[in-house]
């Protein structure tokens, strides 16, 4: 259940990022080496290629409580594995349509091409996305689902209450 | 494309002929240009040094008004002919893009007066619009009285191309020269296109300001320019109105017409000099008239 006290706090979005090893992850390292400061809301998972991003990962992240998902790959034509990023782009285009029908705003799922030299872009993309997601507010699917699932817990509790004396 | 026109104070006063000629040229080129309703001071002058936020808010009001007036447009193009207005509005737009916190404050301030600013406005200098949107080819097509033989020294001054403007090269601008070529005149190649005219110093500390203006005019004369073409009301004023003072102070005999580029354009487009506000000039560009009329001088 949402804790009323917590609502007072400034909402800090939780964003899961999938960065490809060769471009975006390296760019994030460059951002670090360059000491660029950016919003701490994005947590990066390193994968070898954006082509490895299974749409299930994105859905799982949302289902587990992410407010946004960011995928970073090499620019078109730059993929270390030649075309993995195009595969991701195609999935992303359709996944966005699925997410839209299922009520997840476009800004919550973002695909960005960031090359190894674009440390600065890591910063701007992350800051921009965090700001946009912050404006959208929390997605909090786990909390919402557990709120909805309260309706089936009541019956369960009721049955258990009935049963206790029987077993006693 | 539709354009909004932001005159600013000068174009309604000392630079009246800039407005007159520019609007006449726009009309001749069949451009759809409307003045912004209820515009206010751009915030040049001392505002910026006193309170930046308020100054930007004042300037931003004009941008918000533009968005209100052209609310259906995806991108709103505002023409600001005065270099100072152009520079300040451009600076305001950039400031709001880069400082999100200040943008919030200023948006709130605008909200108080029922306005909103989204950021859809593009600030355009008339040189930019004429060369990049209309195109020199279209301008050349519309020319009825080519200024053949007229040598023009294009003088851009500082704020038209610096520091925020990107439509032209900051050190070697060429858009005014492009227009000069399009109307059949000849550009003088000279290195003082963006040199300081003295700006407000000419009016306040003239021993600093006057020599600056004088050097510009002297070099233009030396390179045999018939006329100096400008794109800024203050430059035009400094270069034209103080010629007597300069001649007295530097014991010289400078006498050269200083006009707005739009006035030269207007002449080439066959517009009557009076419509172009040329009757307001202190130093009429006699050489231009002479060459145009094959030696006969026009009285205005």
């Amino acid at each position, binding site marked *: 259940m949402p804790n009323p006290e917590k609502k007072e706090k400034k909402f800090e979005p939780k964003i899961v990022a999938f960065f490809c090893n060769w471009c975006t992850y390296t760019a994030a390292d460059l951002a670090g080496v360059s000491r660029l400061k950016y919003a701490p809301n994005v947590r990066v998972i390193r994968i070898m290629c954006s082509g490895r991003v299974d749409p*299930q990962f994105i859905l799982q992240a949302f289902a587990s409580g992410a407010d946004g998902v960011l995928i970073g790959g090499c620019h078109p034509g730059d993929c270390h594995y030649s075309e993995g990023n*195009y595969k991701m782009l*195609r999935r992303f*285009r359709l996944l966005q349509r699925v997410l839209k029908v299922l009520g997840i705003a476009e800004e919550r799922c973002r695909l960005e091409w960031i090359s190894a030299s674009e440390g600065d872009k890591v910063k701007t993309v992350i800051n921009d996305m965090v700001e946009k997601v912050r404006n959208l507010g929390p997605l909090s699917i786990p909390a919402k689902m557990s709120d909805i699932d309260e309706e089936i817990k009541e019956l369960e509790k009721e049955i258990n209450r009935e049963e206790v004396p029987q077993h006693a | 494309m539709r354009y909004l026109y932001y005159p600013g104070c000068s174009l309604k006063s000392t630079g009246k002929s800039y407005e007159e000629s520019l609007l006449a040229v726009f009309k001749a080129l069949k451009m759809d240009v409307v003045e912004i309703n209820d515009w206010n001071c751009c915030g040049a002058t001392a505002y910026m040094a006193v309170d930046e936020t308020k100054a930007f808010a004042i300037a931003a009001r004009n941008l918000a008004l533009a968005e209100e007036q052209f609310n259906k447009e995806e991108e709103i193009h505002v023409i600001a002919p005065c270099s100072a207005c152009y520079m300040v509005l451009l600076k305001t737009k950039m400031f709001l893009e880069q400082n999100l916190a200040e943008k919030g404050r200023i948006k709130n301030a605008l909200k108080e007066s029922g306005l909103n600013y989204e950021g859809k406005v593009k600030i355009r200098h008339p040189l930019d619009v004429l060369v990049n949107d209309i195109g020199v080819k279209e301008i050349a097509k519309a020319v009825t009285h080519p200024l053949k033989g007229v040598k023009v020294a294009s003088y851009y001054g500082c704020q038209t191309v610096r520091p925020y403007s990107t439509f032209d090269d900051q050190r070697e601008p060429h858009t005014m020269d492009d227009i000069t070529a399009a109307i059949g005149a000849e550009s003088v190649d000279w290195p003082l296109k963006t040199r300081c005219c003295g700006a407000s110093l000419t009016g306040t500390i003239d021993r600093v300001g006057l020599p600056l203006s004088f050097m510009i005019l002297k070099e233009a004369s030396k390179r045999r320019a018939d006329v100096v073409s400008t794109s800024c009301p203050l430059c035009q004023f400094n270069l034209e109105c103080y010629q007597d003072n300069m001649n007295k102070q530097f014991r010289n005999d400078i006498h050269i017409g200083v006009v707005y580029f739009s006035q030269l354009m207007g002449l080439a487009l066959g517009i009557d000099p009076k419509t172009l506000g040329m009757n307001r000039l202190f130093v009429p560009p006699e050489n231009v008239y002479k060459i145009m009329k094959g030696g006969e001088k026009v009285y205005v």
Partner: protein
Amino acid sequence: MPDKPKIGFYWCASCGGCEESVVDLAEDIVMVADAVDIVFWPVAMDFKKADVEAMEDGSILATMINGAIRTSEQEEMARLIRRKSKIVIAYGSCAHMGGIPSLANEFTREQILEYMYQEAPSVVNPEKTRPMLEFKHNSQTVTLPEIRNLVRTLDQVIDVDYYLPGCPPTPKLLKAAVLTLLSGEYPPKGTVLSPDEALCEECPRKESKPTDLAFKHFYRPHQILFDNKKCLLAQGVVCMGPATRAGCEALCINGNMPCSGCFGPTSRVRDQGAKILSSICSNIDPKEEIAIDAVLDDIPDPIGTFYRYGLASSLLRKKVMED
């Protein structure tokens, strides 16, 4: 015949097709009827809730429940059956994954009720009357079950031991399941009683599937005439076969229709729709966003296409309501 194992069948939010599939056993039903004692089957025989309540806990060997859980009554019955049965089998796509009823999870309960009782073209209801959960009359109280906020799979409500997939499960799978139960050698809990590989494995058109699909268009079944020998994906028809568990022996394909995914994903997949989406999209031909979008426009209803039987069991389960 007290020695015969007791079996039950129950239905929740379902169309009745699953019940039909039991009858589809044909002469084998005699074998089943001989081998077991059917103690509860409301569709076929007259049982009351009280009859079940009267049974001893765990006295039924196995109950097969079909249909999704949409109402409080279905939930209550499921819980009751759970208590009375040693083994609960989610029977058919709806119990297994939510089935077609769970496409309702694209909407809120309120949207559905509003449409059903007010806006549907066949409804005349100017007073906006809605069914009441409780109605008191002459000191009598009549109640109606409550429609829940969400369509759920059976295992989202009670503990489920096995799953018999399909819309409906085939008689062959049902027979095999019954034989397994009778054998006493139970598979690990949670097993889906169908082969754990994709349908292509048993598809008669497998040979005709080319290596490089490079989709430029997609067609819906009514838009083209199918070649009845060639892989449907090769003809640009979205066939869920590659992402759907085998076991049906490609019934739909044999009927010249694409697989729509009723057997659900393999055990290694968490979200069937996401997987087929990933697979199909990866094989789209264009590289430019605009061109990709143009190809995707051929799939106007991605949820209905990829999640036809499993929205309730998908990772997101329902449409998210933003605050």
